[in-house]
């Protein structure tokens, strides 16, 4: 059980020497065991926000805390699922799931058992001995979720995890994610482009403005659980979706294209993702 708390968080990146503010004074709280969805236009800092909570990036200003404890780099209390599965192609599925445990020195038998249990949980146990290259995209993302759960995180962060899947598969994965959430009881933060996905999953939907990202609305989703495919036809569902859409439309950015808005930050994020090496002169080569 873990409460996530962000207080006045700002973050900018240096793009060609000039600072580009990506997030500005973002503050919110996710109660323990709740599901928060973050929506916003491209370039609104959704992925940056997730990395701040995961401790992969430090904020320029403000605090990020899980259970009142500031997050640290690669925080153990947090499991992160990326937009792409990011599996190690040379490792079998089961060894991919066991990887986080291997890094902290769990014995080979124990981590195998744990990995098999997790694969069972996400419904990929039959492919434990396959290589990631032999699985479909959806299967791979399930494996990635199992891996994120390997160290029993109290917080599960997902960065547009199902955006590569077709609409129907995506709905099925959303239902499965909710089942998983109910079984693990973890606090979940999911970044998504899809308003229906956000409403279906979340207790509260956070709407971000275009860059620099600010919280422009917090929309509660008072739809009962368990949620099923019938939830999509609930009048409340349509109503809440419309509210979110209005907030998003009201903040419509003037970028030439979504891609132009997202690209510079994404590049910086990818570079920031690499470890800092022993290079006093920087990597300008």
């Amino acid at each position, binding site marked *: 059980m873990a409460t996530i708390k962000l207080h006045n968080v700002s973050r900018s990146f240096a793009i060609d020497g000039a600072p580009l503010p990506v997030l500005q004074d973002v503050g919110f709280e996710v109660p323990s065991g709740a599901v928060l969805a973050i929506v916003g236009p491209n370039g609104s800092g959704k992925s940056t926000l997730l990395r701040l909570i*995961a401790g*992969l990036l430090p904020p320029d200003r403000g605090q990020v805390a899980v259970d009142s404890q500031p997050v640290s*780099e*690669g*925080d*153990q209390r947090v499991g*992160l699922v*990326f937009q*792409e599965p*990011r599996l*190690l*192609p*040379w*490792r079998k599925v089961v060894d991919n799931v066991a*990887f*986080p445990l*291997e*890094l902290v020195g769990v014995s080979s038998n124990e981590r195998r058992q744990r990995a098999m249990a997790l694969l069972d949980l996400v419904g990929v146990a039959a492919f434990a001995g396959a*290589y*990631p*290259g*032999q699985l479909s995209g959806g299967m791979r993302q399930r494996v990635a979720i199992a891996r994120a759960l390997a160290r029993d995180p109290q917080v599960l962060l997902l960065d547009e995890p199902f955006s590569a899947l077709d609409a129907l598969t995506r709905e099925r994965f959303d239902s499965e994610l909710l089942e998983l959430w109910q079984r693990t009881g973890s606090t979940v933060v999911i970044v998504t482009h899809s308003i229906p996905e956000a409403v279906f999953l979340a207790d509260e939907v956070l709407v971000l403005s275009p860059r620099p990202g600010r919280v422009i609305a917090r929309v509660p989703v008072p739809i009962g659980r368990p949620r099923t495919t019938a939830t999509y036809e609930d009048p409340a569902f349509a109503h809440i979706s419309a509210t979110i859409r209005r907030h998003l439309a009201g903040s419509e950015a003037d970028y030439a294209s979504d891609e132009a808005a997202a690209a510079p930050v994404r590049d910086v994020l*990818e*570079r920031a*993702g*690499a*470890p800092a*090496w*022993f*290079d*006093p*002169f*920087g*990597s*300008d*080569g």
Partner: protein
Amino acid sequence: MTAGLPVARGRRIGGALLPVLLAAMFFVLAWKAVVLIGGYPTFILPAPELVAGRFVEAWAEGTMTPHALATLTEIGWGLLVGATSAVAVGYLLARSTLAERLFSPYIVAAQATPILVLAPLLVLWLGTGLAAKVVICALIVFFPVAVATMVGIRSVDSRLLELGRSLRATRWQIVRYLELPAALPQILGGLRVGATLAVIGAIVGEWAGADRGLGYLINLARGSLFDIPLMFATLVTIAAIGVALYLAVVLAERALVGTWR
């Protein structure tokens, strides 16, 4: 990719073997034809059956064995030393711009200097024993493996590195579990080139000064013994070692990388 593969692969290799054998037969026949038509004496170009006979004889009477073992030892150590240091240096070059700026000119210069010029110097400094040959071998192996490692490490997906950080992997764990496995296909590609070059390194080193080894045996057969069929038999042995090394790397590639690629 499918379960039926082993059978299919077996048949494919069986099928692939036939043209290889035919090509070898054609090569030997052409050789024989050149000898017959040209009417060359044995000391210019011995006939294939003569070389084959000398080859079997040299191995049977124990002429070849100690020399082959000496050369193999040089190649083995040279490959080990050269490839290991090349992976370490290649990694450093990939990850540090400073290191690349400082060291790459010397590495390229060392590669551009003909090994034939360096070999006598190294023998002068290190003596005619094993050490000089290992250094010569290692030098010649170094470049292709170092460049392959550098390119391989540079092309590791930075998203995998971020995954490593999100799992709080240590620097060494990132190297061992993420970067080296991801770069392994390229490193092995460099090793393919390096393994065959190692043979050249050993022979060149022996020519620069040695009292054993296949290179030494070639000199001996050509000079004081004037046993040209033995010289050719030694050549065949050297070529076979090169092919065997190359195949060993290919098999290692298949075992390490082939399963998931």
